[in-house]
């Protein structure tokens, strides 16, 4: 009984947690899924670092795809080294690597213990949120290449891209915002404290000496607020006015300026205490709001171009047969380069040697690899599957077919410039209303009591600052972005949120977006195969390089190939052979049956099998779609018009039509440029388009669309440049996520009403010309804080209500 239960239990790899095959690899009690995982375990075990496995369970990274030897040879190049090394002090070099595989506390532990694995490494320190590691090593005892190889050996291959090399400086996080908040908060608090006597004595302080001292101290404290902290409001207001456009910062800058000027006047002439407390408060709250909204996702990047995908080094074969790895950017036309299995082709080239089987799924969306024969041109961006090939470069990296897409103007335009937020429009009306109130008040008082004009007008402009408006949008957006981030929907910035709520059309890509890349379901439909028949099929399928044959091979259990005779293959049709005395054929129905009649049709690609001219059945190979695709699409159908645009062929059209319904447009065999044009066409018709895609082939369309959403099954993986990144696992919640984004506007409008109420109260005092600093000082923080509370609670509440 006991032993039986163990057999039934799925064994998972001790290192990476993946399912183990039957012929498992073990050390003592521990099972491993592959030799790679076992090797990593051995390295860790030998160095006494097995605590790695105690911190989190099965923390490792699957080692099934091995890092090719010599992959990092380019790191011996001095110029490459110089660009990667962040800081050096004698022989000690500091280098920062991005390790996308890092995912748990065990990873942190192991990577920080690198010095135990190699004596040359002095120190390694992880920044987990950024998935970065800072390594300090002695260059006289270990080379940069060795360090990278060590990291790869234990499963954390650093991601080094052309981008790292072209921009030598590592992007620094801007800290000035934090300084500004700190200083504004400090000054605001102290000014408030020093203003308390003023509030309670209602202007009749006994000791005038003390009063002046406090006023002048306030003035001193407000100077850094006005000149340093508030500077960005002035700059932004000035910029927008120069473009003859009134943005939301303009009225704020005006209010701050007037409050400061009036306060300086009152204090220096000893006529009052001024409104410095309100002014610094506005600046402080405003800066917090901005900071909250402009939160960045440290480990994600929305601005990726082709450079991030390309390998860094490539093997060049010289005329004398020598092989040397050089940086990709140094490839010249006419060079002969060697592309190893699973490497991306960096430049357009002519196939010179070897069997090319290129997977273009990332570039074009075609799900099946393409075979190329010698002399054909292979475009950059494809991935070679199978054995190594040699190419003669015909175009340099920067001029290849793939990179041309990036030369399109779409990539130069900044989407945020295209459309301004409705908040700006509201604030513009607000400013007009404000000015008219100020003018009416000025006219009224100049007739009735001219001494009050100055007081009344300045108080209006100070108290009716639209900061509540601005705060309501910044805090709503900030909180929503946070909530969406927790749901694995990463949005670039608040403008995107608004654009999502305006959209009316959704365009999907197929491969990798609604279907799962590299996963297809294979089913055999026919008589039950015995192990010998399976062996026969496997043998013949193994002869062919056709993707469908390969799929069948990987589907069948491993068996030795049998002796094969009279093998022949008709390209695109099928192959036949005599194996072990049996005449076996696999391929299209026409090929296998020699019959033109079509059989009952079903979706997917079919491969028929016959033995001795007798059909024994067929393999049906179907693309596997994301879970709940039907539900997601049907829920979106009512609100949006949908379209599908795929680089793949139309073999699945039937199935997709039933999912998308008759109104949706389904387009197949579309090139990246076609996709971009299609989106443009929709936009010209006045639609606001959300494009959901995943690969490089969609990047033009993602950029052109109003909102480009990249779907990624592994967030740390590389997604094309986009406005938002969605975790593939959250695809089934797409509708709810969009609904939630649509709530943004209603929340902001709600808080607008609240802020208008506060403004009315303030204006009530201000138009009479007797706004005391106390009222201003109370109104300002109360309104700001209540708006913050309102927007954050409401946005959290909606999230709960929508049940996402």
């Amino acid at each position: 009984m006991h032993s039986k239960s163990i057999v039934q239990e799925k064994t998972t790899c001790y290192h990476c947690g993946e399912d183990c095959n039957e012929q498992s690899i073990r050390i003592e009690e521990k099972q491993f899924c592959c030799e790679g995982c076992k090797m990593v375990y051995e390295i860790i075990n030998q160095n006494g670092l097995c605590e790695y496995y105690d911190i989190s369970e099965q923390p490792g990274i699957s080692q099934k795809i091995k890092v090719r030897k010599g992959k990092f040879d380019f790191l011996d190049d001095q110029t490459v080294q110089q660009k990667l090394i962040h800081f050096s002090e004698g022989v000690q070099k500091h280098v920062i690597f991005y390790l996308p595989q890092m995912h748990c506390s065990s990873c942190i532990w192991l990577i920080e213990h690198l010095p135990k694995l190699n004596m040359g490494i002095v120190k390694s320190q992880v920044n987990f949120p950024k998935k970065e590691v800072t390594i300090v090593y002695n260059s006289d005892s270990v080379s940069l290449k060795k360090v990278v190889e060590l990291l790869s050996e234990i499963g954390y291959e650093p991601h080094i891209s052309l981008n790292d090399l072209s921009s030598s400086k590592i992007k620094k996080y801007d800290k000035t915002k934090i300084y500004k908040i700190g200083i504004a908060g400090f000054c605001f608090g102290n000014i408030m404290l020093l203003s308390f006597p003023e509030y309670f004595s209602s202007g009749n302080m006994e000791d005038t000496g003390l009063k002046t001292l406090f006023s002048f101290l306030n003035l001193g404290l407000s100077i850094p607020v006005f000149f340093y902290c508030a500077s960005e409001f002035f700059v932004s207001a000035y910029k927008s006015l120069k473009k003859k456009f009134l943005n939301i910062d303009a009225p704020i800058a005006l209010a701050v300026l007037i409050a400061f000027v009036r306060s300086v006047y009152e204090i220096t002439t000893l006529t009052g205490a001024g409104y410095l407390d309100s002014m610094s408060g506005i600046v402080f709250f405003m800066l917090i709001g901005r900071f909250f909204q402009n939160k960045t996702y440290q480990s994600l990047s929305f601005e990726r171009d082709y450079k991030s995908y390309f390998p860094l080094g490539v093997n060049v074969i010289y005329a004398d047969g020598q092989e040397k790895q050089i940086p990709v950017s140094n490839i010249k036309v006419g060079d002969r380069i060697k592309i190893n299995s699973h490497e991306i082709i960096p430049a357009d080239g002519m196939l010179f040697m070897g069997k090319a089987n290129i997977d273009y799924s990332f570039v074009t969306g075609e799900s099946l690899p393409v075979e190329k024969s010698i002399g054909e041109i292979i475009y950059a961006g494809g991935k070679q599957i199978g054995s190594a090939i040699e190419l003669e470069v015909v175009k340099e990296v920067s001029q290849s077919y793939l990179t041309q897409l990036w030369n399109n103007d779409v990539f130069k335009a900044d989407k945020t410039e295209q459309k301004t937020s409705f908040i700006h429009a509201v604030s513009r009306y607000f400013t007009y209303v404000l000015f008219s109130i100020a003018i009416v008040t000025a006219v009224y008082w100049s007739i009735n009591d001219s001494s009050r004009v100055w007081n009344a007008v300045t108080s209006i402009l100070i108290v009716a600052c639209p900061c509540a408006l601005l705060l309501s949008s910044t805090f709503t957006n900030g909180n929503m972005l946070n909530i969406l981030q927790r749901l694995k929907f990463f949005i670039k910035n608040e403008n995107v949120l608004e654009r999502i709520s305006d959209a009316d059309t959704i365009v999907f890509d197929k491969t990798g977006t609604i279907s799962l890349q590299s996963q297809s379901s294979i089913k055999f439909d026919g008589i039950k195969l015995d192990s010998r028949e399976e062996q026969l099929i496997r043998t013949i399928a193994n002869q062919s390089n056709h993707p469908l044959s390969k799929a069948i091979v990987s589907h069948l259990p491993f068996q030795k190939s049998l002796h094969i005779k009279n093998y022949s293959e008709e390209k695109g049709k099928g192959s036949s052979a005599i194996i072990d005395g049996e005449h076996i054929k696999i391929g299209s129905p026409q090929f296998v049956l020699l019959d033109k009649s079509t059989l009952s049709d079903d979706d997917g690609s079919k491969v028929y099998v016959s033995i001795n001219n007798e059909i024994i059945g067929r393999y049906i190979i179907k693309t596997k779609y994301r879970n709940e695709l039907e539900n997601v699409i049907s829920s979106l159908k009512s609100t949006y018009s949908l379209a599908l645009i795929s680089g793949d062929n139309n073999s699945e059209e039937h199935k997709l039509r039933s999912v998308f319904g008759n109104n949706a447009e389904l387009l197949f065999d579309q090139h990246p440029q076609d996709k971009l044009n299609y989106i443009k066409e929709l936009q010209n018709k006045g639609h606001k388009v959300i494009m959901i895609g995943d690969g490089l082939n969609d990047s033009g369309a993602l950029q052109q669309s109003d909102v480009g959403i990249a779907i990624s099954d592994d967030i740390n993986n590389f997604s094309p440049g986009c406005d938002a990144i969605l975790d593939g696992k959250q695809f089934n919640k797409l509708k709810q996520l969009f609904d939630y984004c649509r709530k943004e506007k209603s929340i902001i409008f709600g808080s607008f009403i609240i802020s208008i109420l506060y403004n009315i109260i303030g204006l009530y005092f201000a138009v009479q010309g007797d706004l005391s600093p106390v009222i201003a000082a109370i109104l300002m923080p109360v309104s700001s804080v209540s708006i913050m509370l309102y927007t954050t609670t409401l946005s959290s509440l909606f999230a709960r209500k929508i049940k996402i």
Partner: protein
Amino acid sequence: MSVIFVLISASLIIATGFLIAFIWSVKSGQYDDDYTPSVRMLFDEDNASQKSETKEIQNKSTKTT
């Protein structure tokens, strides 16, 4: 009443001290990574020497920035 002048100046000096401390802490990168140290402290450290090294490196990296 003059005691209040002393108190006010004392309070401002102390507050400024805190402001400077805050700016210094931001500058030295103490807020750059708010997650990893919380995990790191839970590991059983076997050699104490590593801690002093950590400090050294932090200081060095701030110099370069």
